[in-house]
C-alpha cells in the first residue's frame, strides 16, 4: 500500500546541497557528462554520417544530435539518481544526517530526483548548444525542448530511484543498465530510426519513456512536425509520477525501520 508522498519545500535544501557539491567538482564532472556525448556526436556524426547519408529530409548528424540530447538526459539523470544518490544514502550517511534535521524521506527523495533532473537538463542543454553551434538545430522552437527534457530527466531519475531504493550495492545497478536502460536506448530511436525493428519491438519500445522523449524533442530541434504530443507527454508524466510514488514508498520502508 502506497501512502502518497507529502514533501515540503525543504526538498530544495537537498537540491541545493547537491548543487553545492557539484559546483566544487564542476570541471571533471562536466568533462565526463558533457564531453563524452559531444565526442560521440562529432565522431559518429561525421564518421557515420557519410556512410548513412540522409534519413528522409534529415542529415544523419542532425538526427543523431537530437537523439544524443535525449540520451544524455537519460544517462546523466539515471547515474545521478543511482550511483550518486546511493553513495549519499548508504556510504556517506548524508541522508541520515538530513533525517536528523527536520527533513523527511519524502523531501529527500523529491530533492534528489529534482537534482538529478536538473543535472540531466544542464547536460543536455550544453549538448544542445554545441549542436546549435554546429548548425544542427533548425530554429527557436528548440527552446521548447528544454521543459520536455526537464520532465524527462525527472521521470528517468524517479525510475532510477526505485532501483536505488532496492539496491544493496553498486553491482545491482548493472542489472538495470543491462536489462532496462540499454535496450531502451537501442530501441528508442536515438541512433537510428525505430522503424528498422520489427513491428512488435517497436510497439514494446513504446511502452518505455525514452522513445516518447525522442518523438517530442527531435521535431522541436530539427524543425519537423509534432505527432500526438499529448500522448507522449502523458507517458513521460506517468513514469515521473509513478516513479516518485514508488521510490518514496520504498525509501521510507528502507530508511525508517
Amino acid at each position: 500500500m502506497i501512502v502518497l508522498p507529502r514533501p515540503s519545500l525543504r526538498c530544495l535544501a537537498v537540491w541545493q546541497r547537491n548543487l553545492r557539491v557539484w559546483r566544487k567538482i564542476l570541471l571533471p564532472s562536466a568533462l565526463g557528462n558533457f564531453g563524452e556525448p559531444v565526442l560521440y556526436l562529432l565522431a559518429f556524426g561525421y564518421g557515420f554520417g557519410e556512410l548513412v547519408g540522409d534519413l528522409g529530409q534529415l542529415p544523419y548528424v542532425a538526427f543523431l544530435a537530437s537523439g544524443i540530447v535525449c540520451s544524455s538526459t537519460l544517462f546523466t539523470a539515471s547515474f545521478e539518481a543511482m550511483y550518486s544518490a546511493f553513495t549519499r544514502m548508504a556510504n556517506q550517511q548524508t541522508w541520515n544526517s538530513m533525517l536528523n534535521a527536520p527533513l523527511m524521506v519524502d523531501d529527500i527523495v523529491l530533492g534528489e530526483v529534482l537534482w538529478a533532473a536538473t543535472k540531466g537538463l544542464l547536460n543536455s542543454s550544453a549538448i544542445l548548444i554545441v549542436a546549435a553551434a554546429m548548425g544542427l538545430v533548425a530554429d527557436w522552437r528548440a527552446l521548447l525542448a528544454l521543459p520536455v527534457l526537464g520532465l524527462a530527466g525527472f521521470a528517468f531519475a524517479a525510475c532510477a530511484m526505485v532501483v536505488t531504493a532496492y539496491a544493496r550495492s553498486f553491482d545491482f545497478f548493472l542489472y538495470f543498465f543491462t536489462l532496462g536502460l540499454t535496450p531502451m536506448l537501442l530501441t528508442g530511436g536515438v541512433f537510428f530510426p525505430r522503424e528498422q525493428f520489427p513491428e512488435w519491438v517497436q510497439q514494446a519500445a513504446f511502452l518505455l519513456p525514452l522513445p516518447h522523449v525522442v518523438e517530442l524533442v527531435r521535431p522541436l530541434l530539427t524543425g519537423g512536425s509534432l505527432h500526438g504530443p499529448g500522448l507522449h507527454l502523458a507517458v513521460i508524466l506517468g513514469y515521473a509520477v509513478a516513479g516518485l510514488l514508488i521510490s518514496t514508498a520504498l525509501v521510507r520502508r528502507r530508511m525508517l525501520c
Partner: protein
Amino acid sequence: MQVERSIAAAPPLVVARGLGKSYGGQRVVDGVDLMVHEGECFGLLGPNGAGKTTTLRMLLGLTPPDAGELRVLGEPIPARARRAREQIGVVPQFDSLDPDFTVRENLVTYASYFGLRGPGLAPRIAELLAFANLEGREDTAIAALSGGMKRRLTLARALINRPRLVVLDEPTTGLDPQARHYIWQRLRELRDGGTTLILTTHYMEEAERLCDRLVILDAGHILACDTPRALINAHIEPHVVELIGTTGGDAPPPELSALPGVRLHRAGDLVLLYTAAPRLLLERLDAAGQRYLHRPANLEDVFLKLTGHELRD
C-alpha cells in the same frame, strides 16, 4: 523550592509509555517508559545491543514503534516528528559529517536543512566553531580531522538550530580520555545553560559524571530509573572489595562468604565482595595476604547486580 516547583509544573519534554519494537520476532525494546524534564541531563545506560539506539531513533521519529505512546516536545511522534526535530539537535552514534564539504560548509549546509540562512548564520557558525574549539579550521576537509575534532564538529552541528533538546548517542565512544573530557565539559555547559540532554552510553563513568537521572537498560527492558547516587544507594552496599589474583576456576574463599553482612559476586574471573561494614573483611584479607582493591560502589556494580552480567563485554 520555587524553582523546583516550576520545573515540576512544566510539561516533560519527553513522555514515552510502553514503547516497544521488534525486529524479526525479537523484542529489542520492550515496554519502555521514559519521562525527561526540561533542563536535565538524562541517560540511557546499557551494554551493546540493549536497545539504546533504537529507543533514540523512536524518539526522533525515525523508527516507528510497534507499541506504546510517545510525545516529544509536546508533539506526537512519529506523526509530527518534523515539528519536534525543528527543536532537537542530534549527535548520532556514527559519524555522518558530509565528506564532500569543509568544516564551514558542513555547518552552512546542515543549517539549510533547518531553513536557516542569511546574515544571522555567519555569527552563529563562528560561535559554534569557538564552542567546538575548531577556530582556524573552517576550510579543513572532513577527512583531515581527527576523531575528537569530528565529534566536536558533530556536536557543534547539532547546536546550529539552538535546540531545546539535544540527543546524543554514545557521544564519547572511541575517543581518547582528553577528547572525552572536552566533550563532557561542553555538555555540562550546555546543561547549565538550560538545554535538555538525553544521552546513551555504556561507560558508567560517563553516566555517573554527566547524568542527573538515568535508566539502566538491558535487553530492551528498563531495570531501574533514578539519580546515579540513589541507584547506588538503593541497590548496592557502599563498600566494594575486588580480589586481585584469584582465578575464575577457584572456589570462592568460603571463610569470606561466610562473614556476616558480606555478599559475594563472581563475574568471570572477577570476585567482588560487597558490604556495609568492611573492617572485619579487610582484616581477614590482610591476614591471609590476599591482594585486593577497596573502592566505593558505582553504577557498574548496580548493573552487575541487576543483570548478573557486566556492562561492558
